[in-house]
């Protein structure tokens, strides 16, 4: 009986050794593409098409970045990305928070139907509605502005749904206590509900941010002029149809687009990870 279990610890040790090696492998698998992007962007064109490829640039050069800046009016794309992203986040918050609050704290006629609509909208992909929204935008003559990239996303069904869940977790007692303290609805919303739902609000904001900043399909369809195109569409412009694909230049452009997101993540990774996890529990 005794000897039967002496292997118990040894086996555990072996398993954890293998597990650790595999973890290192996974780290490489998930981080290496980023490394590859960064390294490529510092290579010369010639250096990039050497076979087999080198893990470090032979000659370290900023040529690719120079090309990005000379060939593109990068500030224009960057500005558009920033404006669209900020506007979407602000509008979604302004519209989503009161709606979520009403759905979580009031019972009123039609609430059930409206909630069902919100849930249904959550399921409807923009990849279906784009045709008719496009027609709408064209009739409004908005296609040479940033509006088509902002306005259709004014209400985020997903955000409303998530915030409502968070608001419902706030104990009724606290709200009633606040009412007894003569707090108005707006004060209850901003001073009690929002702080209580901070984690969800952060998740919603992060999703809005990632969604807008990384959006490709929608601006591709909804922009008719270079002056309203975001960064995601800029990289395409770095491909020279007639010459070979200059991977360092494309990777340099890519890096400029990816960097802000990576920086935000590096700074706030713990918060982001925990708020993502929180979402899963609900």
């Amino acid at each position: 009986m005794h000897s039967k279990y002496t292997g118990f610890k040894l086996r555990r040790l072996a398993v954890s050794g293998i597990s650790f090696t595999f973890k290192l492998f996974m780290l490489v698998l998930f981080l290496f593409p980023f490394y590859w992007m960064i390294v490529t962007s510092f290579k010369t064109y010639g250096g990039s098409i050497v076979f087999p490829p080198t893990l470090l640039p032979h000659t370290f050069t900023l040529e690719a970045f120079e090309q990005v800046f000379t060939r593109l009016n990068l500030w224009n794309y960057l500005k558009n990305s920033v404006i669209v992203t900020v506007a979407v986040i602000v509008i979604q918050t302004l519209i989503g928070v009161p709606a979520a609050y009403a759905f979580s704290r009031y019972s009123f006629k039609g609430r059930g139907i409206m909630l069902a609509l919100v849930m249904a909208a959550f399921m409807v992909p923009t990849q279906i509605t784009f045709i008719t929204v496009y027609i709408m935008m064209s009739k409004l003559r908005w296609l040479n502005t940033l509006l088509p990239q902002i306005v259709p996303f004014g209400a985020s069904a997903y955000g409303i749904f998530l915030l409502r869940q968070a608001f419902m977790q706030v104990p009724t007692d606290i709200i009633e206590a606040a009412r007894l303290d003569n707090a108005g609805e707006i004060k209850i919303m901003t001073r009690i509900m929002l702080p209580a739902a901070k984690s969800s609000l952060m998740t919603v904001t992060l999703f809005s941010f990632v969604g807008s900043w990384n959006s490709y399909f929608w601006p591709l369809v909804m922009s008719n002029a270079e002056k309203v195109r975001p960064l995601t569409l800029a990289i395409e412009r770095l491909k020279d149809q007639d010459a070979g694909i200059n991977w360092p230049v494309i990777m340099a452009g890519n890096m400029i687009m990816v960097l802000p997101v990576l920086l935000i993540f590096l700074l706030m990774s713990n918060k982001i990870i925990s708020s993502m996890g929180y979402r899963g529990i609900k």
Partner: protein
Amino acid sequence: MPYVMVAPAMTFLLVFTFYPLANLVYLSFFRYNLISDKVFIGLTNYRNLLFVKKDFIQALKNTALYSFAVVFFTILLAILFALWLEKDSKINRFLQKSMFTPYLIAMVSTAYIWSWMFDVDSGLLNAALAFVKLSPLRWLNDSSLAIWCIVIVSVWKSLGYYLLIVLASLKSIPSEIIEAAELDNTPWLRKFFRIILPMISPQIFFLLITITISSFKVFDSVRVMTNGGPGNATDVLVTYIHRYAFQMNMRVGYASAAGSLLLGILMILTVFYFRFAGRRVHYQ
């Protein structure tokens, strides 16, 4: 008061989600290219889509294969990794973060990075194959491999996020239940299938729906990496709709019919999930 609060949100949803949906279905019965007058042609668009032209069925098949593969592998790997990385340690946290990073990056960027790695002539993957003395692959140029390359990129990109959700749901299982199972001398596999999986089934079910829906919307990666090729080996529903709506003489009516079918498929899938899969889900 509550009406005032929900009115803006409802207005936006009605104008930008539900009206376009209704309009989409309406337009699918017309021959219309935005410039011409609308001509009512009944179900002709649908007939062409389903019975006359072969490319829609091909796109549908590709999308179904893609979605199935992505849903299957994402959920499978997310669960396996979650079980593996469940313990709270430094390396596990770091690995979770690393795996999550691609989720925040634009699919366009991801697709460019991977296209570069898939590059036949000077790509990293063929270099790796050459290093271990294997013959190079044609990756995105190979009609049977291309769609799998896109699947790989999708799974790679979003695995970290779904992993977090599964991890959180694992953590929400009361530890006593797991301990009780241990005291019951439960073998590893049975513990997983009889205890853990049923306990996290609501979250898995949620993932099943969201991943399926997002798979049916795939566009960015296909457009950047293969643009539907070779031939139409990676043509998916959204690239198909986009192509007909914005190239191909702007056949908006026809594209609307394709969009309506996609909508129908999504609705059927959702109902199917709730009806059938939903029954097997354990809710506490």
